């Protein structure tokens, strides 16, 4: 971004919030210069600029708390004891562990009598700390992992926090591990003895998870079964489900049906066959992806030349990118990691990879149906897996033959039975049972027994809802945590501003963007869906002028499309722009708040953002300002949305409040950018416009004085009122 004036907008400071406001309080109990305090110098990694080992560990741990803190709320601080320990180095090495520090029942406010709760839930509900215990949750991690000599094929933890950078080969994601272990401590943990399924504590007292753990065959919850019945139930496969209402509601909108691959779709000869989808993104949209197929061709020592897959292992750069471009590449299993094949296919320009098994279907060596591939890459093309027999049929397709990757939409989502989400209940790895979702879920869950170890963006899938079903409060009372201005550091110069209007429950989003070098802006109301905000009816306006040339009757309002905001925590969110009819492409932008804060707060301790919101002059409907108090509680950002010569214009500035006034002395107008993928931040120029002086009048009105240094924008004063008035009583 070129700057013709000084602007402090993107350089505001982070102010730490008081400890009292925290939802989670961490006690790092390591000795000095060890574990979370380890002063060993390390290189910064993507998203984690700390330069000591301990510093990087703390940064990841606190990001995990931000992620959980953005989705949960409670009436008291939850105390977490975290440390590093020697958890051994052998053939099967422990990376970390976690869980509740105690069980408690019949506490004040307990939803059910004689049901044991993990301590964190009891604390969150009752609003008091149980002083007999020095922490609610305990987590420990193996410091020896980072020695590089602990276990074969693993050099250490990956402390990166940039979701675009997956854990490199031979590393394990510390963020995913911390989130997973914390989830157990938060309550996703069967409080039954895995050896005999007796309830921990006093054997007649069930735990809260057992209340909602259901055996479909017996038509009974676990708290109604005998220990022997629970032992049987714990290994009963898809017979074991979780019946919490909110969890299943979320699961129903997230989980995908089994995959199908259709040869020659739409033709009389169309043939549909089973395909296996991996549990990790990118996923094919439910409408499917239809493309021609082409067999990958490249060097490789095997299979023998007589084999039709002779040169299709894709273990090295492919020879036929022109043939593969935009098509689905057929690749044979074998000889190298799937990630390498995926990379080579992507590099060749293919639209997707169809991985063909090299073992007979049903044989011991065949790829398991619920196979989850841990990939140390982050590539935008899907991987689908088919049997050897289906691969043979694909080979017989004509050169122009089409294939559709889609789903069996008439079948229930994977990982569900009778409409309920499956808990893990395997006969093979029984130790993982009950305390996780089933491995068959797609998309994969954070609480899959097998940690994914892939590029992790903080998606908690349906795990928060499971915790709500157990007794945690959701974050609905602190949705103002997302208020403020958001931007993408790689796309500096454009952004979005979110405020909670009315009684802090009406979300209004404006986005300030560019097309062909000129500004434009969008505005719309959103719906809080727990894991995302949907702004389905964003509008765009045009048609009038600035100042005295403004005529509300000239304002033309048109639907633009939708914007989906997917926060991973209160400071980071992906914005998906989906224009309807403007001819503009869809694009996504990973944004961060211009003023970040700890997301680890309780609703009752949030800063007062009641002055934030959207204001306008009722006689000048069609223009107005959006005013946001940033997360530090002192920085304000104003955006004035108006027009010049029939086109949209926006101006932006920052200031600090003094009494009832805010002086925005650095207001700028911008130019030079373009839309979506065409944006080059270097082309954006900031032009100083002047100053805005604002004075609050009552709780719903303000006076705005505009002092412009630019001749095309006259100085002016306005009396503005809220679009969504607050109750001032």
């Amino acid at each position, binding site marked *: 971004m070129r700057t013709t004036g000084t602007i402090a907008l993107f350089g505001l400071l982070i102010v730490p919030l008081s400890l009292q406001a925290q939802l989670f309080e961490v006690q790092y109990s390591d000795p000095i210069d060890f574990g979370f305090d380890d002063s060993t110098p390390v290189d910064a990694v993507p998203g984690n600029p700390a330069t000591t080992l301990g510093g990087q560990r703390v940064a990841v741990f606190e990001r995990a708390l931000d992620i959980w803190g953005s989705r949960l709320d409670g009436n008291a601080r939850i105390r977490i004891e975290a440390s590093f320990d020697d958890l051994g180095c052998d053939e099967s090495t422990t990376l970390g562990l976690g869980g509740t520090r105690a069980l408690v029942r019949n506490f004040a406010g307990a939803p059910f009598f004689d049901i044991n709760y993990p301590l964190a839930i009891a604390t969150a509900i009752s609003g008091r700390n149980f002083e007999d215990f020095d922490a609610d949750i305990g987590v420990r991690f193996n410091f020896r992992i980072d020695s590089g000599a602990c276990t074969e094929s693993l050099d250490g933890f990956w402390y990166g926090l940039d979701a675009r950078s997956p854990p490199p080969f031979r590393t394990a994601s510390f963020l995913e591990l911390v989130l997973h*272990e914390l989830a157990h401590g938060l309550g996703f943990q069967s409080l039954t003895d895995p050896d005999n399924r007796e309830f921990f504590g006093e054997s007649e007292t069930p735990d809260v998870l057992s209340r909602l753990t259901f055996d479909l065959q017996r038509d009974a919850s676990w708290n109604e079964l005998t220990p022997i019945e629970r032992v049987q139930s714990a290994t009963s496969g898809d017979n074991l489900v979780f019946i919490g209402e909110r969890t299943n509601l979320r699961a129903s909108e997230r989980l995908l049906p089994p995959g199908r691959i259709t040869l020659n779709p739409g033709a009389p000869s169309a043939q549909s066959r089973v395909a296996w989808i991996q549990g990790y993104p990118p996923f094919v949209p439910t409408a499917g992806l239809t493309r021609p197929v082409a067999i990958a061709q490249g060097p490789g020592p095997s299979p023998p030349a007589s084999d039709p897959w002779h040169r299709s292992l894709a273990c090295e750069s492919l020879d036929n990118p022109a043939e593969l471009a935009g098509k689905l590449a057929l690749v044979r299993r074998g000889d190298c990691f799937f990630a390498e094949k995926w990379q080579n296919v992507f590099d060749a320009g293919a639209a997707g990879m169809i991985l063909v098994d090299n073992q007979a279907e049903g044989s011991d060596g065949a790829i398991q149906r619920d196979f989850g591939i841990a990939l140390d890459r982050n590539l935008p093309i899907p991987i689908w897996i088919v049997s050897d027999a289906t691969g043979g049929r694909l080979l017989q397709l004509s050169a122009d033959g089409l294939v559709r990757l889609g789903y069996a939409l008439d079948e229930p989502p994977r990982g569900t039975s009778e409409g309920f989400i499956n808990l893990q209940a395997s006969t093979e790895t029984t130790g993982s049972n009950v305390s996780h979702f089933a491995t068959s879920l797609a998309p994969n869950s954070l609480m899959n027994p097998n940690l994914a170890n892939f590029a992790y963006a903080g998606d908690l899938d349906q795990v928060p809802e499971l915790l709500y079903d157990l007794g945690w409060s959701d974050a609905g009372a602190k949705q103002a945590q997302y208020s403020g201005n958001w931007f993408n550091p790689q796309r500096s110069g454009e952004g979005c501003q979110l405020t909670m209007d009315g009684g802090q429950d009406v979300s209004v989003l404006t986005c300030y963007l560019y097309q062909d070098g000129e500004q434009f802006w969008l505005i719309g109301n959103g719906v809080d869906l727990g894991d995302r905000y949907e702004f389905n009816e964003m509008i765009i306006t045009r048609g009038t002028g600035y100042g005295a040339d403004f005529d509300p009757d000239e304002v033309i309002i048109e639907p633009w499309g939708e914007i989906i905001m997917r926060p991973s925590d209160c400071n980071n969110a992906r914005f998906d722009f989906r224009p309807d009819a403007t001819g503009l492409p869809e694009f996504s932008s990973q944004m961060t708040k211009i003023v970040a804060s700890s997301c680890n707060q309780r609703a009752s301790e949030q800063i007062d953002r009641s002055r934030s919101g959207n204001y306008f002059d009722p006689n000048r409907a069609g223009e107005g300002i959006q005013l946001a108090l940033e997360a530090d509680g002192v920085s304000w950002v104003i955006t004035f949305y108006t027009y010049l010569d029939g086109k949209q214009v926006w101006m932006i500035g920052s200031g600090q409040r003094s009494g009832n006034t805010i002086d925005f002395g650095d207001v700028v107008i911008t130019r030079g950018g373009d839309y979506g993928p065409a944006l080059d931040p270097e082309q954006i120029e900031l032009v100083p416009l002047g100053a805005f002086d604002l004075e609050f009048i009552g709780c719903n009105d303000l006076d705005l004085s505009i002092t412009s240094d630019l001749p095309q924008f006259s100085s002016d004063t306005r009396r503005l009122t809220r679009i969504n008035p607050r109750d001032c009583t």
Partner: protein
Amino acid sequence: MRASSSPADASPSGWTCASTLTGAGLQCPDHSCRTLHMPSIKWPLTALLLAICASSSAFDLETFRSLDPSQLREAEARMSEFLEPGTARLLREPRNASERYLFQRQQRQAAAFNRRAVPVSQGNGEKAQAMFWPAARASRVRIGPDGRAHIQCQPAQVLIGRTPPDFRSGNPAPRPVR
């Protein structure tokens, strides 16, 4: 509990774990470690027991740092030779510093797993009970046949070598008729 075997030169034969120490006059400073009753205790083992007690509630970083890493890895690889999986009972006398360290570590963990705190009751019917290690979950990494690390979450009792029951060869869940 009784050690399953005992080399001739070692004292642990006949070791008995009990809630209080009666034979050696030794007592842990808190109740967080397993105490041992030994009919005849040689001095090195007494020192070892003291070390166990001293380090019972916390990782012994100082001792760890004093170890030869390769000796420690070798000792870990043969841990089942001198410690019984699942109980951490001594099968033979530790032969070097690394084995002694591992004995301490595994004893500390086994004690934590086996401890069952007394529930704390309040007058209003509230009842709470400490319960970390028996219920804790642990993420374990193993190297699969493809040479890659696979991470799987298990009960934390795997730390002391306990393995969850395996139902693959039988004892399938019956399918009752509703």
